[in-house]
């Protein structure tokens, strides 16, 4: 591995174990050698101003000064410029749920239609800095799309591993980019475990294994954007889907950094987590007050959230507890209802993870856990067009008729 002194990671100064605080050098490593805890990027940001950010490109790179990447775009691989997605004020859904102010942060707008383009862009950059020739990942589908597309754009090889029972829409939308797509007979946790072994065996840059500290930092950009798009303010409440738990913890990290840098005013905020009942290890541990997460064998239509052994679960629980929020779970039926509710009220067709988040939002309100009078942001992290199977039995033709006006008049009342 190349030595630290020759490498450019922008404002990042090192890695540190989140568990035991042992420091480590910046590099392709993700696990503490002392306790196996996750390594996290440390920074020295210096001064960062709103003006400097606002003058940047309309992509995650406007926050380059807050990411572990070279500050000059020419030192980064060619990329798909993800990020700066819509924050849509959602009056109709708010009315339906009896809420005062609701926004949907809609990450369908990303190049491969999910928030994973953000994390991949940062991981790919670290991969280039560290000299990897092949980029790889374990994925539930969205990440596979993002890695395959980003590798195509950067002109490097990719090897993508996914469970072989994923939705067709996620298989095709990875394969089309010309990646080496490996279907594994097993669930995501099996794929993930295999990737940890391959990372030891081959010289691949695995975005969510040996490049994971960099990759995870990409999720912070969702938090930065929410604050900037609200006019440099933090919302009162955020609802975030939980797979590994990383996204939720990084939204919190982003908000804390913005406060520390004086880019937003400090205020209390609450970060809620959303899971599916068929894979709810984090919600279960939260409910039972455990500090470890008991792994599960997932069985849910929300395959993008089907991580039975979530690496950042304990930290997501810490954030929900610290911010006086909750972590909930909803049935597959509620997920389908959530997808339809969001589509019918806001014109947003979310993938199953979005259904999980909206259904949990509704449930948090019904249970009095989330305050409907406070400003709330809900994350939609993916696109329903990739997971049509999830609702194709629930929606379809209202009616089919012969091509005659008479038939139409009879079938469709005024």
């Amino acid at each position, binding site marked *: 591995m190349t030595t630290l002194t020759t490498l450019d990671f922008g404002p990042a100064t090192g890695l540190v174990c989140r568990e035991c605080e042992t420091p480590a050098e910046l590099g392709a490593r993700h696990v503490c050698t002392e306790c196996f*805890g996750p390594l996290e990027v440390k920074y020295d940001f210096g001064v960062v101003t709103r003006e400097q950010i606002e003058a940047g490109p309309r992509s995650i790179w406007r926050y380059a000064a807050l990411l572990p990447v070279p500050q000059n775009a020419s030192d980064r691989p060619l990329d798909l410029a993800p990020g700066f997605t819509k924050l849509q004020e959602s009056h109709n859904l708010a009315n339906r749920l009896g809420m005062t102010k609701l926004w949907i942060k809609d990450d369908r707008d990303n190049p491969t239609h999910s928030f994973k383009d953000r994390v991949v862009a940062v991981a790919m950059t670290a991969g280039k800095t560290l000299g990897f020739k092949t980029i790889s990942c374990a994925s539930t589908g969205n990440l596979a799309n993002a890695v395959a597309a980003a590798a195509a754009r950067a002109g490097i090889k990719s090897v993508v591993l996914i469970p072989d029972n994923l939705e067709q829409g996620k298989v095709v939308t990875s394969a089309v980019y010309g990646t080496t797509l490996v279907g594994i007979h097993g669930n995501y946790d099996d794929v993930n*475990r295999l990737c940890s072994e391959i990372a*030891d065996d081959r010289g691949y840059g*695995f975005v969510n*294994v040996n490049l*994971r500290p960099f990759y995870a930092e990409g999720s912070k950009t969702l938090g930065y954007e929410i604050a900037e798009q609200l006019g440099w303010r933090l919302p009162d409440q955020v609802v975030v889907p939980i797979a590994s738990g990383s996204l939720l913890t990084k939204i919190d990290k982003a908000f804390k950094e913005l406060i520390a840098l004086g880019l937003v005013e400090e205020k209390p905020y609450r970060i809620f987590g959303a899971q599916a009942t068929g894979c709810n290890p984090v919600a279960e541990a939260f409910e039972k007050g455990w500090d470890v997460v*008991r792994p599960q064998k997932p069985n849910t239509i929300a395959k993008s959230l089907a991580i039975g052994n979530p690496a950042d679960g304990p930290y997501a629980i810490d954030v929900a507890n610290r911010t006086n929020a909750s972590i909930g779970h909803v049935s597959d039926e509620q997920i389908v209802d959530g997808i339809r509710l969001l589509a019918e009220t806001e014109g947003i067709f979310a993938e199953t993870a979005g259904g999980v988040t909206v259904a949990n939002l509704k449930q948090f309100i019904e249970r009095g856990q989330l305050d409907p009078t406070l400003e709330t942001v809900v994350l939609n992290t993916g696109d329903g067009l990739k997971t049509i199977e999830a609702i194709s039995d629930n929606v379809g033709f209202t009616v089919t008729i012969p091509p005659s006006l008479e038939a139409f008049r009879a079938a469709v009342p005024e």
Partner: protein
Amino acid sequence: MSVIVRVPTILRSYTSGEAEVAGDGATLNDVLHDLETRHAGLLARVLDDNGKIRRFVNVYVNEEDVRFEQGLETPTPAGTAVSILAAVAGG
């Protein structure tokens, strides 16, 4: 030596760089303690001060996560394959 144990990169400083080492014992706990006699220091990386598997370590016996089996008491008959992996990955 009837059990093969796969060791992740970050523990190979205890195994002279070997990716696989052999051990003996009726249960996972016995195998790990047997390894410690030849690879001193390894045990403390896998188990915490209370003798439990660390929260960021996953151990598999014949491809099954031992948290779904009997934990450290999971039987390891001759021919068993044990794999130790860092839990932190993915997502």
